[in-house]
């Protein structure tokens, strides 16, 4: 009987263990092995070349450019979605009439696929017929008109802005849940002690949102690392490589150029960056349990 008790649960999880083992961990391991070979072209070539592909990567200005763009994307996207999400959550926390409606409206962009939103934002950013420059024209602010995504100096920031729009609804929901889980008693006690709304949020509520912030950081950093669809549709990393990030470079290197080992090395770097983000999160949350 005791033996069955041990075996049955194991049997239940066995299919997932096998599938995850093969398709996730097996693939990661296989990818790393490929990155150490000379595989170039459609015919596999497993000649071992050690870390050559990695050495080449860090001498490749295109890779360095993509890495820099990726870091900018991570920093500004996280900063943006955290701030906008938090502000929206605080505003919604003021017992607004029709809160549910607002919540749905803010969350709605998350329900649209990136291919659609990227296409729409590219239209809006169009310097001649796009809505941004048209509005600026209508407001007689023609001097503020810009090339938006066609201007390599600001194209990446334009994409980050669009992504903030798409993600801030999600971060708002996470923050709102966090705010609502702060015990009412502590907030009430602070009020009794004379704390105004600003102090309540800055001294009592926001400091208790660490788990929300942490999970948003992790989710958004991982998204920013593997962001592909939006940027691919919004200009395939252009103009002039100004929005090219690692995932785009990896895809192009593998599936357009057929440099599979080199692309596997980019994938490994991406994986290590994701691990560097996830491990501390897992460590911090585990400690709490």
């Amino acid at each position: 009987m005791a033996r069955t008790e041990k075996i049955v649960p194991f049997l239940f999880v066995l299919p997932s263990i096998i599938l995850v083992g093969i398709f996730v961990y097996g693939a990661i391991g296989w990818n790393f092995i490929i990155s150490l070979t000379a595989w170039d072209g459609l015919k596999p070539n497993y000649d071992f070349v050690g870390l050559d592909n990695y050495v080449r990567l860090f001498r490749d200005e295109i890779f360095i450019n993509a890495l820099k763009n990726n870091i900018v994307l991570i920093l500004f996207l996280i900063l943006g979605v955290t701030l906008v999400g938090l502000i929206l959550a605080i505003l919604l926390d003021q017992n607004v009439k029709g809160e549910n409606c607002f919540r749905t409206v803010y969350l709605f962009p998350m329900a649209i696929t990136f291919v659609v939103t990227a296409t729409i934002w590219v239209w809006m950013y169009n310097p001649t017929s796009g809505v941004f420059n048209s509005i600026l024209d209508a407001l007689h602010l023609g001097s503020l008109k810009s090339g938006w995504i066609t201007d390599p100096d600001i194209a990446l920031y334009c994409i980050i802005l669009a992504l903030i729009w798409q993600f801030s609804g999600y971060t708002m929901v996470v923050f709102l849940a966090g705010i609502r889980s702060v015990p009412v008693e502590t907030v009430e006690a602070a009020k009794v002690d004379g704390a105004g709304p600003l102090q309540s949020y800055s001294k009592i509520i926001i400091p208790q949102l660490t788990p929300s912030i942490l999970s948003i950081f992790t989710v958004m950093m991982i998204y920013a690392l593997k962001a592909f669809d939006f940027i691919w549709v919004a200009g395939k990393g252009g103009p002039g490589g100004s929005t090219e990030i690692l995932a785009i470079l990896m895809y192009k290197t593998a599936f357009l150029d057929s440099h599979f080992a080199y692309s596997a090395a980019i994938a490994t770097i991406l994986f290590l960056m994701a691990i560097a983000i996830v491990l501390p999160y897992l460590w911090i949350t585990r400690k709490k349990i």
Partner: protein
Amino acid sequence: MDKKTKLTAILATGVVIFVAFSGCIGGEKEEKAELQIVHWWTAGGEKEAINALFSMYRDKYPNIGINEEPISGGAGADMKAVMKTQIFAGNPPSTFQVHIGYELKPYYDGDALEDITWLWEQEGWGDNFPADLQEMAQFDDEYYAVPVGIHRGNLVWYNMEIFKEHNLKLPTTFDELLSVCESLKNEGITPLAVGTLNKWPGAHLFEVILMSVGADFYSDFISGKVNINDPRFDEALNRYADLFEYINSNHAALTWDQACGEVLSGDAAMTLMGDWAKGYFDTRGWRYGVNYSIFEFPETRGVFDVICDSFCLPKNAPSRDAAIKWLQLIGSIKGQNKFNPIKGSIPPRIDAPTDEYDDLAKATIADFRVCTLVPSIAHGSATPESFVTKFNDYMDNYITYGDKTAVKSGIQKAIENELLPYM
């Protein structure tokens, strides 16, 4: 039955159902030949063209089913990725679409294609296709693809009303083109519309400029024989830079068809594009010779920038016989003359009657039969794919930043790393 035994029974039943449904046991497959075909023709015009071929195929071979897998995405950019993964997985379709030339090479190098020289000999195609084109379908003197349609890349499409209104003469030299552009600019009209959102149209424009410097020079360039400091390469870059003054400022936000839209709306006077642009104008009610017309990009008269669609036969293709029948159909006059008039392309066969084609296609067919045929870089025929990606990227950099030194060193590196080792 206790709870644990019940759970075990449920689990076991679940596994059996899963296995049965996944077709591992008990599935009796009916053996019916089915042509599995992958292509990227999903837009208006091209979809109708491939469908016409399918219905011809069905009429001829009613016992063979067709299982098509269209993967949209301009010039097959997305289809190529899917194709590579399918071939890796040992699961190729019966046949798939590919541009002849270097776009075939990764599959040839990967030992994924069947030599179909016997089919060419059996059908006697050696006498029916231009020699230059046959060369593009060959590796080591063996044939690996069958061309179905030809597009021409070095054409400038212009708004006839604008040209008439401003009394402009069609330019035949590059300097004349610049002076036409200058006149248009002075009138507040964008002279040349380009849509570089997907990068390749910018590279396409530059490859035509390279041809304008000399067809021989272009051939040397794609063979990796050109030194990047060659004055002719400088000349090509300077010509491109001269045109920067006259192209639409929103080029990075537009696709090629939206650039055609600028010509249609009268915001721009000209655009350089392959002759698939015809489909764009025609479907919007414009007529060739009335609303729009074409001229060869200045100084490329006598040169035909070839973009050739073809199909190939993967090794271990399922329903190989069905695929061979497909290749026979698309290589035949009947097949090509069914497909091309609808698609807006021309037949690769030089013995195909031209009665069914419109005036523009007739003119293109006439040129095709006398011009020097050169393969396109931007469309994958002239150089290895990895070079094409870099070429597209560096040309996008050039049109964005205008930094000649950077583009020269980039192209030099691409020639060394992506062109010469893979020739």
